[in-house]
């Protein structure tokens, strides 16, 4: 069965923790007949809601993993992509948001717009995702959907418009009034499955008329046809729906729906709204990077006949091996087809193509542009792009930044040790910015990533998903050493005591370069060093680059020019020249004004404007450089450059400073020279450590 693009929706359900997202998802699956009975969240009946397939999420009520589920409603296919509700995990968030075409923002009718709602709102804004709002929990004491709608306007700056009003709230909540159809809607049956449409109760009629007028006022801005019709009092439902849809897709209007998922009220009209107002994949522009022309952005076509392009946005380890969730962005992917992974250049055959419903699945023959599907048995990493041979496109940049922070971990107990390697293997596959290795000196496992929070999430996942308990060291900033001046070397390596002798002499200079880690130039004339020993020299210099003399971190940005040397007919060897090169490098390095570099991060803090003073102060205290601040009414964004070494624990500081209302993102920007005072401290610490190890 081919999917008609206009009848497809890829949506996410985003919410503050505890606003009932999981219950709502569960109800949606039930009404779409994907599951046959409903559970409650947090497993009162020991089963738990269907979408949260990871234990961590079950326990905390949060969602890290983004499972995708396909449901049908009103002749439309809806793929529900479970989105992470927090920002720490940038790659994960980015991937799940970019596969969405629209979102439902769930708000609690008592709590309203909370700090996490603000976070989710910012993420959706950043990725230009259109959304509709659902005010949940109308049965709760203190429920006030009008207040929540106003908060959407005031706190988030949304043009929020009620399209429904409640028929009673708290324990008197019975149903809703649909302001478009001007009808009352009730939800009968033990699980609210029978939708009953009635006349609006007489006492609610004036309120309904007032709210409808408000709605028409706001909505008619998006349609001249509707404006005219309203003036003449002959507006139709179709005209209103079309105008709301236009405003929603342009992200200039947020239609608001309401109900209580727990009490089975209001979910079916919300599904109607998903179909009516959120865009289909053809209405959203998607871009890929052309790897043949330095990652130029190319607009993709939703034409199913175009060459296929798909993004692997999520991997899951299942009982039958790796399951790869993909979104098709262009063309069509068929069972049996051969595709190419543009990152690894490996070919792959589409063996089984399936559509997922949380933990169960159905085989399909093809997935076309806009579709979400999953592949079995494909060896790939999360974020990889699959294309037809001949295309060289990537959905996300293939440049992966070097990790800037590392942490030594050691498993507690044998069982943990066994599972640790499994966990690390999985995580490194999912996330190219997460790396791991065993330190040859300490024999400890080191994990590396893009920041403190990044590593924290993985430590947490090790515990939850793989039952791996680890002890951790202190996070370590990935410093670098570099040189700032040219220096000459002339070094002879000579060893003639017993056995075969060793002889090699190298002469030349080292100098700083800015865009490369290392460069070797062979400028030796007249065979003063025989050609066969040149690679050994280069290797010797490179070995020296691994560990700088100042603080033992890798050296970067050096060009070595070898100009002269000397060899011995018998005693010269690869080994002798390697040793000579290392000696030469050592000799020149201290003369080349070595310096220590630290990773500097691009920091972006977003917060209500009242806290900008605190944020400026916090950046200043951390040796940060404020680049700009942008105040947009209620919110401010401060962009700065801050050394990573000063950022440990910043999330806690920021939280307490702003009552949890601010958030920050941080990404690696550049390496920069550390201030003299810090350099002295780091050198002293390194020497101290060296002495201790010697004493051992």
């Amino acid at each position, binding site marked *: 069965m081919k999917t008609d693009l206009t009848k497809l929706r890829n949506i996410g359900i985003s919410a503050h923790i505890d606003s009932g997202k999981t219950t709502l998802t569960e109800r949606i699956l039930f009404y779409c007949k994907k599951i046959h009975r409903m559970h409650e969240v947090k497993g009162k009946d020991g089963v738990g809601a269907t979408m949260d397939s990871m234990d961590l999420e079950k326990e905390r009520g949060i969602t890290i993993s983004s499972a995708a589920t396909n449901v049908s409603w009103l002749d439309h296919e809806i793929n529900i992509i479970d989105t992470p509700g927090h920002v720490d995990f940038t790659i994960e968030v980015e991937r799940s948001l970019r596969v969405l075409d629209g979102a439902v923002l769930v708000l609690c009718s008592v709590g309203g717009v909370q700090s996490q709602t603000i976070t989710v709102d910012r993420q959706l804004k950043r990725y230009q995702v259109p959304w509709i709002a659902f005010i949940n929990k109308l049965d709760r004491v203190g429920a006030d959907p009008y207040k929540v709608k106003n908060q959407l306007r005031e706190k988030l700056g949304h043009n929020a418009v009620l399209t429904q009003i409640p028929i009673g709230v708290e324990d008197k909540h019975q149903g809703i009034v649909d302001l478009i159809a001007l009808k009352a809607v009730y939800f009968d049956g033990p699980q609210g499955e029978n939708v009953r449409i009635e006349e609006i109760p007489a006492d609610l009629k004036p309120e309904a008329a007032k709210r409808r007028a408000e709605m028409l006022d706001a909505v008619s801005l998006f349609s001249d046809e509707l404006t005219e019709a309203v003036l003449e009092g002959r507006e139709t439902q179709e005209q209103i729906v079309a105008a709301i849809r236009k405003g929603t897709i342009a992200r200039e209007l947020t239609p608001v729906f309401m109900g209580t998922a727990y009490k089975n009220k209001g979910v079916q009209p919300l599904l109607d709204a998903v179909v009516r107002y959120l865009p289909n994949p053809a209405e959203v522009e998607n871009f890929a990077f052309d790897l043949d022309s330095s990652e130029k952005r190319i607009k993709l076509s939703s034409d199913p006949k175009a060459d296929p392009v798909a993004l692997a946005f999520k991997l899951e380890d299942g009982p039958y091996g790796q399951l790869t969730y993909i979104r098709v962005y262009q063309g069509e992917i068929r069972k049996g087809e051969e595709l190419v992974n543009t990152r690894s250049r490996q070919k792959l055959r589409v063996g089984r193509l399936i559509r997922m419903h949380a933990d169960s699945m159905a085989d399909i023959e093809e997935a076309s542009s806009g579709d979400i599907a999953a592949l079995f048995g494909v060896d790939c990493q999360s974020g990889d792009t699959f294309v037809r041979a001949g295309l060289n496109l990537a959905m996300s940049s293939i440049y992966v930044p070097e990790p800037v922070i590392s942490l030594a971990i050691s498993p507690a107990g044998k069982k943990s040790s066994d599972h640790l390697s499994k966990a690390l293997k999985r995580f490194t596959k999912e996330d190219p910015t997460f790396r791991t290795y065993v330190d040859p000196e300490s024999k400890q496992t080191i994990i590396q990533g893009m920041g403190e929070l990044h590593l924290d999430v993985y430590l947490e996942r090790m515990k939850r998903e793989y039952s791996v308990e680890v002890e951790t060291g202190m996070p370590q900033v990935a410093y670098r050493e570099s040189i700032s001046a040219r220096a000459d070397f002339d070094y002879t390596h000579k060893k003639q005591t017993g056995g075969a002798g060793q002889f090699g002499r190298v002469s030349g200079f080292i100098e700083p370069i800015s865009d490369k880690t290392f460069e070797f130039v062979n400028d030796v004339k007249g065979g003063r060093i025989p050609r066969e020993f040149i690679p050994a020299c280069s290797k010797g210099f490179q070995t020296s680059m691994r560990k700088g003399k100042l603080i033992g971190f890798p050296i970067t940005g050096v060009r070595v020019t070898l100009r002269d040397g000397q060899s011995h007919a018998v005693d010269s060897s690869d080994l002798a020249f390697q040793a000579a090169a290392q000696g030469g490098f050592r000799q020149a390095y201290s003369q080349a004004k070595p310096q220590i570099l630290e990773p500097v991060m691009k920091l972006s803090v977003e917060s209500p*404007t009242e806290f*900008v*003073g*605190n944020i*400026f*102060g916090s*950046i*200043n205290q951390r040796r940060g*450089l*404020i*680049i*700009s*601040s*942008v*105040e*947009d*009414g*209620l919110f*401010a964004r401060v*962009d700065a450059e801050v050394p990573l070494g000063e950022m440990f624990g910043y999330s806690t500081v920021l939280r307490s400073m702003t009552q949890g209302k601010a958030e920050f993102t941080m990404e690696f920007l550049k390496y920069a020279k550390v201030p003299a005072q810090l350099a002295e401290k780091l050198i002293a610490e390194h020497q101290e450590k060296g002495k201790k190890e010697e004493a051992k």
Partner: protein
Amino acid sequence: MVKDELIHRSPLRILEQSIHGGLGKGNIGVLASRKGVGKTACLVHIATDKLFQQKPVIHVSYSSRVDHIMTWYEDIFREIARSLNQESISDLHDEIIKNRVIMNFKQDGTKTEQVLRSLEAMIQYGKFAAETIIVDGYNFVQSAPEDLGKFKDFAAKMGLEVWFSASLKAEDPLFDERGLPHELKRHLDNIDVLITLRSMENLVQLRLVKDHDYPSPDELRLGLDPGTLLIAEP
């Protein structure tokens, strides 16, 4: 040429002389013209000249995006630093970025009190010792004179000099017989130095129409070079 010489030879020294030693702390300077004549270029040139002298500058913008403003600075910097050698250019560039902060406000939603609060926070908590504030895109037509007065009080309290751009929107004639823009007359009490930009044939002419409390302002022998967009001697 070295940096000090560049500072010394800058046409902005002529401006300083003409306005009797510069704008001065606690004072408000305004560059006024129709849209698109070159106010922002002049403001950025004034700011960059301060930055060359290692004097920190806060650039407040009500209209442009941050990246657009940064591009302005890059362009003006490149023009001014053209005569320096490559190595000192890159050092100078780093230094300039350290001494500059851009603060962007959406005028519709931001009151002057809020702007001043954030500026004070930047100076006080951000420990950013600005001496000069550049304000681009402030709406003189819609703002009450008292509102500009708040900037003036702030400049006095914090010891700052503040340069504004004012976009003139009225129909011709824009200026009276003394060269004062009609639209800015109600703000004159709060303005210490007022310079107008007028588009002539090959040049944009800068005219000093108010200079502190001097009754007749000097003739300003400066213009804006349409090629480089720098303030220059004609």
